[in-house]
């Protein structure tokens, strides 16, 4: 407990790097308006790993893409502010935005097979941002690229620099993606399901690598995942999203030891864990909500085992406890004990 508290104090002293304030991102589709991100507010501090957990349609990826302003039609950011290093990202010009992307914020994606350009060598792809943002000459950039390939743990970097993506395995490509994202020493790395497409043993390598690089560079990491195992291993701070809203957020130990939102609790209980034998798995009944026509009340109400009349009347407001653990649930608002 004591170490945990000192860690927390340390965390609070850190500067805020990113702040989302009531972000609203929608997608206009034929079937109706999807409120992909619906009033999301949270912070990422310097050097901190924040994991955003959620299932499909929870809005976790759209939140990250909104920060990069990579939402393309029919999607649109319709409200809120996103501050990065004190600047409102949503007010930057396209030029300033380009300077932010790839330079101050790096991003890696789920699919290492399609996020590299097949007709360019990996070296050329790492060199691109260096020449663009750092104004390096070709030979400087190349030297730097080889260094980066070494740093992401690929042996024979001097040969790999001239390889084409198809010559590399999935794990290697994801390492190259990380090298590209890190080339300009970003303050924040966004990793959107970086290991979902990879094998377990490769996932372990990549997670280790991300952790190591984050420590070395004192970089903040925004890790988007659906895997609670990955969260437990990587996160300092956890954001749980459901239906485009944050239902719970807090420090990783609080979230796992004392999940306060029934959805978080269900997610933790429903995941089969090695060594925890059960005859039946705990299940959350029903389906992930349809992002079109979300109800006016709590989105989780129809799957919630503790549903109360209030849950079917309006959406619960977020409450904060003395430990800074935030929850959007009426049970917490009333201080109900479980």
């Amino acid at each position: 407990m004591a170490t945990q508290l000192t860690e927390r104090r340390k965390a609070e002293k850190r500067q805020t790097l990113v702040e989302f304030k009531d972000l609203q991102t929608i997608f206009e589709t034929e079937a109706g308006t999807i409120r992909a991100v619906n009033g999301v507010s949270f912070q990422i501090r310097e050097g901190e790993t924040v994991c955003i957990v959620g299932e499909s349609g929870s809005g976790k990826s759209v939140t990250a893409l909104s920060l990069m302003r990579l939402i393309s039609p029919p999607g649109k950011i319709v409200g809120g502010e996103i501050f990065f290093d004190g600047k409102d990202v949503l007010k930057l010009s396209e030029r300033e935005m380009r300077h932010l992307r790839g330079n101050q914020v790096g991003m890696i994606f789920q699919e290492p097979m399609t996020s590299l350009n097949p007709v360019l060598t990996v070296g050329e792809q790492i060199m691109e941002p260096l020449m663009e943002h750092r104004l390096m000459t070709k030979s400087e950039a190349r030297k730097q690229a080889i260094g980066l390939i070494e740093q992401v743990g690929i042996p024979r970097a001097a040969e790999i620099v001239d390889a084409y993506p198809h010559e590399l395995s999935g794990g290697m490509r994801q390492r190259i993606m990380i090298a590209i994202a890190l080339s300009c020493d970003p303050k924040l790395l966004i990793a959107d399901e970086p290991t979902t497409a990879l094998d377990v043993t490769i996932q372990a390598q990549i997670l280790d690598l991300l952790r190591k690089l984050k420590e070395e560079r004192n970089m903040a990491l925004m890790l988007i995942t659906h895997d609670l195992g990955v969260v437990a291993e990587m996160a300092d701070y956890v954001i749980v999203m459901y239906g485009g809203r944050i239902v719970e957020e807090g420090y990783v130990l609080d979230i796992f030891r004392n999940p306060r939102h029934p959805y978080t609790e269900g997610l933790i209980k429903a995941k089969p864990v090695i060594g925890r034998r059960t005859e039946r798995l705990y299940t959350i009944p029903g389906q992930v909500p349809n992002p079109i026509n979300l109800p006016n009340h709590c989105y989780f109400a129809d799957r919630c085992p503790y549903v109360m009349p209030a849950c079917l009347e309006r959406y619960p407001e977020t409450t904060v406890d003395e430990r800074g653990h935030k929850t959007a649930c009426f049970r917490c608002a009333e201080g109900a004990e479980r």
Partner: protein
Amino acid sequence: MTIATESKVRAVKRKADSPWKSAWRRFIRNPMAIAALTMLTVIVLFSFVGPFFSPYKDARITVKNANQPPSAEHWLGTDNLGRDVVLRLMQAGQISLLVGLMATGVILLLGGTIGLVSGFYGGWVDSIFMRFADIMFAIPTLPILITFGAILSDLKFPPDRRIYLVMLIIGLISWMGLSRLVRSQVLSLKEQEFMLAAEALGLRDRRKLFAHLLPNIIPIMIVSGTLGVAGAILLESALSFLGLGVIPPTPSWGQMLSAANNMVDFSKRPWLWIPPGVMILITVVSINVIGDALRDAFDPKMKR
């Protein structure tokens, strides 16, 4: 057992449309498509219903009325045999549209079947059909058609039946594109797990072909069929213009153009060649717009 209660699935509130219905809904919501469809309907009505209202439908050919410019009696003038151009345009429209439709029918039947069978069975069946398609592609069609047309004329093939032959020929020389399209679609469908599932379920080939593959290739058949009608109308016009297609007295738009193929008609009697040209243009453009709209309607992801 507790499965029923524990995992009871929430009712789907409103029954959603079938893929066909939602494609249709997307189609009729497209203003360009509606405009084109209206245009085409007007042309079809003009060609097939129009003649009943023409005062000249039973008129004899009177050469003394030949080559009159547009007037109150003959809105678009008369041709070199004294026939009313408006009526001629209507009758020609019937032929051109029919040729377009029937030729497309031949293309769909041949191209669709060959593509489906080729893609589904693969192996030597596929090799034979596709090599045959390659050969058909490689044949220079125009010289062959010119020769063919000459032979037909020599054989004194009855002109009224010649249009059927034209339909068949157009179909026979244009099925290859569709068959390749269908084949590649079938190949990609075969990679889908539901085709593997069909195999695992032990379904008969007939079922796999007609219940699983065919409904999934019908959209591309409809789209390319629609575009094919336009292509066939153009080809018929070209053939008739070269004297290889429909020959007089059977009219077609291409044939009407061909009849005006001399310097005097061209410079002095524009009412002879502008109207059929405009008809071809409007028809082909409308059909192509409809085809594109259908494509968007069937595959909304392709848009943009």
